[in-house]
């Protein structure tokens, strides 16, 4: 029923339109559908076998309502003070800044090595595999490692978090680099320009909007990570208060307030990123 068409048109069935059913399936389409279908099947299977702990949905949603209510409609500073929380928030933002800036700096140079249109395939593949490996080591482990080797504190937090930042950005940056047209690169190569000048004079200006966009996404993730595990390294940031009010006091009101603070930062971030992106894109 399904007729595959390979890229050589000669092998195509000669359609006899009036009698035979005309199929429009092609090989890539078939693969795409197989993949999606397979994933859907896996999804169905896992949804059906999902352990729901005899959940009564009506009850669950009712309790969800109460919890959300006390979290988001009655936020309060709890046992901590505004002063304390805001200072801690600043520390979290600073952590995210540091990890993002460091990550972006290192990632750019590594990404040049990981881009297929600039580097030999073996190097690009090796770097990509190493980065995938780094990404699969949980952040908390990185933080542990560095709080043991250099003591608790911001140093450990920043270094621990920067690993994932680099690994993620290398993937993103190198894909952006791979998207720059090879013709443009070739144009400079043809006039005898060396490797690094090409990277800085040709590739960098062309991909700045993409870099900006990725870096801001990562900033957002870094901020979330700083909150989630920065406190574990003893960076004494807002994550500590979130952890305390959440895991130790189950104080929904304070958690609500902290979530509001975090969302506030996220919104500001999104606005800044939209402005900057707009600034660059409008010139196109």
């Amino acid at each position, binding site marked *: 029923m399904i007729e595959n068409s390979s890229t050589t048109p000669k092998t195509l069935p000669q359609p006899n339109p009036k009698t035979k059913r005309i199929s429009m399936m092609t090989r890539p389409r078939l693969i795409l559908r197989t993949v999606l279908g397979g994933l859907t099947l896996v999804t169905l299977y896992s949804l059906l076998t999902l352990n729901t*702990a005899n959940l009564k949905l009506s009850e669950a949603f*009712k*309790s969800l309502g*109460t*919890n959300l209510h*006390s*979290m988001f409609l009655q936020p309060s500073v709890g*046992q*901590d003070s505004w002063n*304390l929380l805001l200072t801690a928030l600043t520390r979290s933002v600073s952590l995210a800044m540091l990890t993002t800036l460091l990550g972006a700096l290192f990632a750019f140079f590594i990404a040049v090595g990981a881009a297929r249109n600039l580097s030999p395939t073996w190097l690009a593949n090796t770097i990509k595999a190493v980065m995938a490996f780094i990404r699969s080591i949980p952040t*908390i482990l990185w*933080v*542990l490692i560095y*709080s*043991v080797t*250099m*003591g*608790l*504190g911001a140093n450990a937090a920043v270094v621990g978090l920067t690993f994932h930042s680099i690994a993620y950005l290398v993937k993103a940056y190198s894909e952006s680099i791979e998207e720059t047209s090879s013709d443009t690169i070739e144009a400079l190569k043809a006039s005898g320009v060396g490797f690094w000048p090409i990277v800085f004079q040709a590739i960098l200006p062309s991909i700045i909007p993409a870099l900006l966009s990725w870096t801001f996404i990562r900033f957002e993730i870094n901020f979330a990570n700083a909150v989630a*595990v920065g*406190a*574990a*390294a*003893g960076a*004494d940031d807002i*994550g*500590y*208060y979130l*952890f*305390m009010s*959440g*895991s*130790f*006091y*189950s*104080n*929904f*009101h304070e958690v609500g307030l902290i979530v509001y603070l975090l969302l506030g930062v996220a919104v500001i971030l999104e606005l800044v990123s939209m402005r900057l992106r707009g600034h660059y894109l409008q010139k196109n």
Partner: protein
Amino acid sequence: ASGTATGTKSDSSASKDKDKAITVVFYPNESAKSFSGSRDALKKSIEKATGKTVKLQTTTDYNVAIQAIASGKAQVAYMGANGYIQANHISKDVQPFAAQSDAEGSLKKATYNSYIMVQQKDADKYKDGDKYSIKNIKGKKMSYVSNSSTSGFLVPTAEIKREFNVKDEDKLTQNGQFFSKVLYGGSHQGSAVNLLKGDADVAAFDDGDLMPYLKPSEGSWDKLGSTFEVKDDAEAPFTDLKGKKVVNIAMMPVQQGPWVYNTKSLSKDDQEKIAKEFTSKEFASNKEIFSQPGSKAAKLFQRKTDKQQLIKVTDKWYEPTHKLVGY
């Protein structure tokens, strides 16, 4: 000769460390919460005692805290009993020097309570004669706090292991082995909520964390078989659970967590100075660190009587917890 040579060498590098700031690490276990006021006062008094600058470090990760004190990157720490045993296991340099005394100012009852509780309506099922026991909890749904908690995990599992003579702790933590289902509440409150909502049949948690939400309606916090009721003014997540009752079918004393130092990275001199300062009467009357009798202000330590204070302890005193952990 070479041994002494390396010895002096490591000594000199260690002494260089010793001149530097003293790092104090807090892991927020059941007994040490986030009281920045108390922490600052602590810092001041250590600085006063040693004449050195003190750096306070908080961490939310159990492993990080233990590795920090065990590796000597931190010199002083306040930990739960279980955490201390782990740190001591990794490095014998970690030694306890002070813990909170009982109301009499002694170590005799320097404990708080960990419970195994069930809902009141099911309580009869757990009666062995006219006394409550945990004999019937096998095959039930169990809720712990988290697997790093002393009172919400270590002590209850030890009790169960003893009662049922189970060797492998992993049996108690996996679904469908000893228990039909194992839950983790994430916090003491969470574990209690698991029980109150009926998601778990049996739950473990401690007294201090539930006091704001539960009140003994029969018996008291110190009596086995007491009944506890959710207070009328209980906050979320207990708001929907008002009036529900639970019964403790087992009550285990948990040793107060110790203050420890790393004897390698903290000079003898400083060790003595800090220990002396902490166990002094003046220290216990510091209003920033101890909430004074009758006062409601939340501080790092609660003081029920004037006699209560920090008191000197050694590794030996933690023998019972050593036994529980198995090393």
